[in-house]
């Protein structure tokens, strides 16, 4: 039984994760995003009443799924549709996720994953545990069927509809009835073993009929099982008058012997019961084989959708909400009111969005004064891109971008104080790793790269590396203070009527007010250095 909610045709995540996912998570601050998706907001009268503690499993799952990009619009749409269903049927997704978690927890309690320990244990204990697991399966699968068939559940996505149809086929009512009837027939084996059964004035006894022959050592051979059933009877204390009467009546069966009076025979009666029950249990286990990984998979895949639903609620809480992005050509990028989600989540405020429209650009160079929101701009694109590429919604009015299966980030990490010595070395080493891994559909986000050396030297390095990568077809967005570099590129392209390079800066009105619109802007030759000089030292001759 396949779940196939993450991909139309596969259960496990694609093996192609982002190169250096750890850097992407760190530089884009995605940890906060994983955390937010793992928290349930409890609303009351439209207000957030409380926030549940985060679910570790959802966090881990979001991390895994988000770091494994999809590579086609179809795949993205497939998940977007399921997210829409999930938002509309939040209770279904939540219940599926919780039931699976509960099954797995109980199953672990019954010894799943501790096979070695269990194998050493008493076979009777093992068989009893197996029967309990079967009960757990049948009951939980029954609950899942009820959920999927509930009247108020309306599913329209291809993925959810297919999952429901396949499940109803795999675990039909008829199948459930069969499983339950066999489990009832062998209930003599486990009933009475639980503490709650003690004290009840009733025991469950078996009736077994089989045909046998003899093999050449006079042992039983070629058995045929005719009947197995369990029947409750009143419990009488051994030795009591009623017990004796019943024993006497029973003993009048011709050509028979007692299975309780001789200890050798009674021990072996237990072996016989064990043999027959384990035979039936093995057959039932085979019937359940297709569900052995079902709960793990369903839990894993619903965790992502539940995470998406919860993330959506978080976004709504922050402000205007979200949209499903659309896919366009890789050289285009267009968005309206795109917000840096992580910053919003972290600060619990509605952040101000950026709007931007780029057509047929391969290199975007963002310059401008500090505090202008350059890095935020870059990060908001990075975050949206990662979210889009795993099927999630983004926090914007609209967002349209190409698919980049290979996203690389190269952010200067000022906070890594231990790397003070040889920081350029470390930077170039990371760049080397990126260069080794670029390929078709690569997007490189550079944030203040090569700022660990002089501006002049850094500019040369940046020019060489960025030119080469651009010529190799890598789409690059860079936020930089390397003005020599930016100027050099600008001088080269300013005469051309059509250019694939865009220079942006955060717009400021003349009164200094920020519009948070990225506008085309010629890079300056000077930056904050002079300003700073002026601020601290005083006048400077130009």
């Amino acid at each position: 039984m396949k779940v196939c909610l993450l991909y139309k045709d596969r259960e496990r995540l694609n093996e192609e994760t982002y190169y250096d996912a750890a850097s992407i998570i760190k530089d884009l601050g995605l940890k906060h995003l994983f955390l937010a998706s793992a928290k349930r907001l409890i609303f009351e009268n439209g207000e957030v009443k409380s926030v549940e503690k985060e679910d570790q499993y959802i966090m881990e799952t979001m991390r895994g799924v988000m770091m494994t990009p999809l590579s086609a619009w179809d795949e993205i749409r497939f998940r977007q549709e399921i997210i829409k269903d999930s938002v509309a049927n939040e209770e279904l997704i939540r219940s599926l996720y919780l039931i699976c978690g509960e099954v797995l927890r109980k199953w672990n309690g019954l010894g799943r994953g501790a096979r070695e320990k269990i194998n050493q244990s008493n076979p009777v204990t093992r068989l009893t545990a197996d029967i309990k697991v079967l009960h757990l399966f049948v009951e939980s699968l029954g609950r899942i069927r009820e959920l999927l068939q509930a009247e108020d559940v309306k599913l329209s996505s291809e993925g959810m509809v297919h999952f429901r149809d396949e499940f109803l086929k795999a675990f039909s009512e008829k199948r459930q009835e069969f499983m339950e009837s066999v489990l009832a027939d062998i209930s003599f084996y486990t009933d009475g073993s639980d503490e709650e059964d003690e004290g009840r004035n009733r025991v469950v006894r078996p009736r077994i009929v089989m045909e046998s022959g003899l093999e050449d050592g006079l042992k039983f051979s070629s058995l045929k099982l005719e009947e197995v059933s369990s029947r409750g009877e009143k419990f009488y204390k051994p030795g009591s008058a009623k017990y004796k009467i019943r024993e006497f009546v029973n003993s009048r069966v011709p050509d028979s012997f007692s299975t309780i009076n001789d200890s050798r025979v009674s021990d072996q009666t237990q072996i016989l019961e064990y043999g027959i029950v384990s035979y039936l249990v093995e057959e039932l286990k085979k019937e359940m084989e297709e569900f052995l990984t079902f709960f793990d998979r369903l839990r894993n895949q619903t965790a992502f959708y539940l995470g998406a639903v919860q993330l959506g609620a978080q976004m709504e809480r922050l402000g205007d909400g979200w949209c499903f992005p659309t896919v366009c050509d890789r050289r285009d990028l267009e968005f309206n009111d795109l917000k840096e989600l992580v910053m919003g989540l972290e600060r619990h405020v509605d952040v101000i969005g950026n709007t931007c429209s780029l057509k047929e650009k391969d290199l975007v160079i963002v310059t401008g004064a500090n505090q202008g929101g350059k890095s935020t701009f870059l990060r908001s694109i990075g975050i949206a891109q990662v979210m889009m590429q795993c099927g999630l919604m983004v926090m914007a009015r609209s967002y349209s971008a190409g698919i980049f299966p290979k996203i690389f980030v190269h952010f200067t990490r000022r906070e890594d104080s231990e790397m003070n010595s040889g920081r350029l070395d470390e930077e170039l080493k990371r760049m080397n790793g990126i260069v080794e891994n670029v390929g078709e559909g690569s997007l490189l986000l550079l944030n203040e790269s090569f700022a660990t050396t002089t501006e002049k030297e850094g500019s040369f390095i940046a020019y060489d590396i960025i030119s080469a990568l651009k010529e190799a077809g890598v789409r690059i967005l860079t936020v930089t203070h390397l003005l020599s570099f930016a100027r050099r590129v600008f001088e080269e392209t300013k005469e051309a009527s059509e250019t694939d390079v865009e220079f942006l800066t955060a717009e400021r009105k003349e009164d200094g007010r920020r519009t948070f619109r990225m506008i085309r802007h010629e890079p300056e030759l000077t930056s904050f250095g002079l300003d700073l000089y002026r601020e601290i030292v005083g006048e400077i001759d130009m």
Partner: protein
Amino acid sequence: MIKDANNFSILNPGAREFEPLEAVPFYQDLNLDQVINKMMLRWGKEMKKYYRYMPTSPEEVAYRRAVYRDIKSDKVYDTLVSFTENLAGIDLLRAEKEKVRIPMQKYVWFIREVGAYCEAYEELEKRLDEAGLESEGMKTFLSILKDILGSGGYRELAARTRDIMAQIKSMRFIITYDKDRMSVELGELEGEGAYEEMLERECGKEIRHLQNPFIADPTITGIENSCLEILMKKRPEFFDGLKKTAELNAGYEKKVLKRFENEVVYYLSFATLQREMESAGYRFSEPECDETKKMEAKGLYDLALALASVSSGKEVVANDFCYGEGERFFVLTGPNQGGKTTFARSLGQLVFLALMGFDVPAESANVHFFPAIQTHFSVEESVETGKGKLKEELTRLAPMMEDNQKDTFVVINELFTTAANYDAQIMGRNVLKHFIGLGCMGIYVTHLKELSEGHESVVSLRATLGDDMIPTFRIARGEASDVACAEAVVNKYRLTYEQLKERL
């Protein structure tokens, strides 16, 4: 030959009993132990003693050779191999029987064992009959076997056991376990068991049958026994008859067959080894044993070395030799690591295998009869040196040189290496003279080139070097010389005076 059904051996025509040889050094010196140990892996430890039992006359050699010729043929070989496999199966049945406590099961297992035993011989007889036996030994055995199978014999017993087993297997009964009792009635269910049929229907696929839960215990368990007792009550005449058959045939094994079973492994083990080696590309041939012709061999190789090389893939060099008219001893000289010891061993192996009646590892060979093989190899790993080592060598040599050791085949490998050259020459010459005087033949490997001179019965052989001064492992007649064995190594590393001049 007069057939004595109780006194027959496939190893010698007189059915002599024998004591295996004491631990004789030549098995180890000639690396025959390696060969025998290899065979023991498959055929068990017991067979080893038969290799310690050498024929005492040319007639015995001929008797074995004829038997081996029969046994190595495909038909007889396959027949006997499958026969020994059947016997091994019966040994397992015997071992199982010992675990049984319940008398009726013991009877049945005994009958099963007797049946399997008789059938193994029935099959053996049938297949040997069709195999076209030639040797006196095998033909005699077959006629003894026919008598034993004949009227009132194994054939009838086999039929009776088959009938009993068939009846046991056809017995069907229904067990009902309910209300703390189990009841048994003879009869069969309709169909394959209603519950199993239901499972199969519901699961939509074939399911396996219920196994006997008591299968892990080969003996009858309490429940099985209680059921069996009810069955015995219901079918008394059958179970009584079964018991009687078992009791009447308690001593079913015939001594003469037992002896054959043990002894035939001697031939089978070597035939198997030979087949394996042949399929790996090594040649064997049946030796001639003509005393009137020269003793010689072509393409002779060291069987133990060849065995090892099957896995290592190293090439094994074969050599020819011939003792000319009046020649009795080879004195073999040559460089170290030149194949001298290997050649000496292969010569000893040749004589041994030919005497044992087997084929030999050579393209062709004529081997004379020798009443014994004597070897003397220096103990290289001995901690003794100087006087101690010489003493040890001489102590081993003395019993070999007693006057009653006539006409033997002698292999000597490096004597007196620690003695003074002058002494060693004299002692060596004496040893040679002694053995030649007692009518022995053999080979003497030595560093002393002088030993090859001065006796008309002594032939000088040399291990040869190629043009590149690297040993070829070929042994040829030639004048003994002191060969510089270091030259090859020096050449190989370009360290001669000229080479060094060029390089430096």
